[in-house]
């Protein structure tokens, strides 16, 4: 007798848990050959707010961690991705990729995790500065995470593009809420399962699925989101989010979807603030000596 396959229920990922949308709404995107991908949660304003709460709560855990520790966790993500290659490839194919393209995208994604794992404890060394001020002060500028970041993932590159958006944000100590590709949401939800098993604390990454047009203005106006990173928006959408996000001067980062440029330490800097610290240096010398 044939065994009946168990179908997966695709859910959201908020604060380390996998809830359905509180709204009970769903949509059914079509994949290869017009076949429905499943009943995907259509996140609501309230789901978004819950995610922001989770991200804000996790920031105090993630941002102050040793950069070395963040590095290990991102590398662990790479390990978990590698172990699920077949599943990611299969879902990419369901979403319309050819077998070759799916394999390439998964490999790109795994390598991206390893690439950004390495940057976690290096971008500070490369891009920070000790500033030679003219007065007797020790003065240095370092990068700090901007805080809670909302990320609108690319619509087409459902896995590699998603990670290219996500990894620079968390490598730099931020927490985030990611809105997955509306048309190709499966990769994002399966990625959540990777995140949940990578020692990444709950709430550091929260993943929503749903309608971009509906959620964009809510992301843009939310007062507890510090930065909004978005890929492949229309000119009008960019203008709209810039205008709407003025209330708390969100840092707006617009990515052009270009899978060949996902490896870039400058992408980390885009969701960082620069803090400059001053402290006096005593200049008196015992016995009037010189050095």
């Amino acid at each position, binding site marked *: 007798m044939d065994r009946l396959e168990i179908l997966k229920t695709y859910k959201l990922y908020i604060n380390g848990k996998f809830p359905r949308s509180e709204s009970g709404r769903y949509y059914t995107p079509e994949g290869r050959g017009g076949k429905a991908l499943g009943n995907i949660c259509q996140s609501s304003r309230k789901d978004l707010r819950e995610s922001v709460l989770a991200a804000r709560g996790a920031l105090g855990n993630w941002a102050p961690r040793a950069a070395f520790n963040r590095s290990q966790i991102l590398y662990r993500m790479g390990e978990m991705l590698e172990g699920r290659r077949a599943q990611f490839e299969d879902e990419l194919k369901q979403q319309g990729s050819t077998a070759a393209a799916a394999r390439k995208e998964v490999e790109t994604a795994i390598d991206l995790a390893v690439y950004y794992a390495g940057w976690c404890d290096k971008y500070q060394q*490369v891009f920070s*500065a000790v*500033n*030679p*001020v*003219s*007065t007797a*002060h020790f*003065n240095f*500028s370092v990068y*700090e995470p*901007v805080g809670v970041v909302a990320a609108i993932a690319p619509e087409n590159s459902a896995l590699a593009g998603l990670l290219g958006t996500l990894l620079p944000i968390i490598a730099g100590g931020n927490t985030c809420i990611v809105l997955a590709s509306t048309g190709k949401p499966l990769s994002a939800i399966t990625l959540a399962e990777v995140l949940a098993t990578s020692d990444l604390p709950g709430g550091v990454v929260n993943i929503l699925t749903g309608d971009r047009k509906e959620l964009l203005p809510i992301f843009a106006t939310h007062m507890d989101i*510090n930065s909004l990173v978005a890929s492949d928006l229309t*000119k009008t959408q*960019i*203008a*709209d989010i*810039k*205008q709407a996000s*003025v*209330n*708390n*001067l969100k*840092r707006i980062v617009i990515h052009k979807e270009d899978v060949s440029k996902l490896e870039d330490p*400058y992408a980390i800097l885009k969701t960082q*603030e*620069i*803090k*400059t*610290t*001053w*402290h*006096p240096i005593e200049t008196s010398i015992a016995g009037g000596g010189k050095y």
Partner: protein
Amino acid sequence: MKKNTQWEYAPAPEAAKIAKIAKRYDHFINGKWTPPQSGNYFRTINPGNGRKLSEVADGNDADVDAAVKAARAAYEGPWGKMSGRERGKYIYRIARLMQERAREFSIIETLDGGKPIRESRDIDVPLAANHFFYTAGWADKLEYAFPNRKVASLGVAGQIIPWNFPLLMAAWKIAPALATGNTVVLKPAETTPLTALKLAEIIADSGLPEGVVNIVTGAGSTGAAIVNHPDIDKIAFTGSTGVGKLIQQTIANTDKRATLELGGKAANIILEDAAIDQAVEGIVNGIYFNQGHVCCAGSRLFIQESVYDEVIWKLKRRMRTLVVGDPLDKNTDIGAINSKEQLKTIQKYIQLGQEQGGEMYQPKCKLPAAGNWCPPTLFTNVTQSSVIAQEEIFGPVLAAQSFRTVPEVISKANNTPYGLSAGVWCDKGARLFQLTTQLEAGVVWGNTFNQFDPASPFGGFKESGFGREGGLHGLAAYLEM
């Protein structure tokens, strides 16, 4: 015999006549002094005595358009084609010319803006010249600043600056724009246009190609003309958070870049083991420097409970020694409030502070009859919800609160939409760095306050704006990466 317990200072005025101020100034466009298209001029007055100093051109859309055209032509012409090394040499020249005329510039800065001559002489003018000197050397070394990136200039930068550090802000804006190969249209604040116009004289003397720097004077509508001009690639603005947000909204549907350096409400935190006398000096420098017309002023004072009474007592004693009055007098600590409007704003907040239960202290001081004056002011019995503890006053008004624990003061200090600067006074390194790393501010001063340097990046977190000015990191604001 009655003993005089307090030293009286004999007046030591700087010589106003050294300043060469013309009766009237036109715009500086394409290397030439150009009358405004409207034919209108407005007065700039000395806030220390209310008398007119000069009159300057009132810029309109047509003036801004002419300036942008000149800047574009210079960008596509000689300046855009020039090597970094040659660009740098021009900037060095400007720095040297400023140093040579430093005394005259200090006097004009004080006459036009009301700040004490001690500050314009020792801080504003030398720092402005140093900014040009420091930044000049970057012009031919940009490939070392941004590893593995080929950077390019943006084009024409529209720059709008405030009245609190008129020349210094012009230097902060112009120097990095030129070093990175851009051209400039700059608008100084309407109440303090003179030193920017004197800087135009220096720029003309330096032989900088025509149109590379254009200076257009005017009020808000002139600034709006710059923000709205379609051929400007980048807006650099220093000013209020309200106007900054308006600018960001205005340019939302364009490709213009922006850096915004906006308001602040800095916490100055005194821990119980701090060197109290030094901390008191830091509190005074933090809030009364430049009459408190400082975006990064330490306007919120947090004192640990165990030393609260001592700090307040010593602070009041120190406040009684501050000399308020003639900005040109070398003894003056607190000069004139920049404008009548700003004085009214400050007085409104002082009134509000009292109405909301704050206890006000102002030392008795003799204020001159004419001009705009406000004595140094301290409020105690202030709560987190008091308006004077939340809103930027931009005047010599300090709001003091107490705290018990370090986590408490961190959360109080960060409980503001602003994030420009902060100060911590503490003798223990480990605790000091706990605070400096957790305070949400772009500049944090440990056991010091209000220090500035051309090599040190300046700019805010949160609603205090974005982008940095100064240092290596300040160059990024004018480059395509």
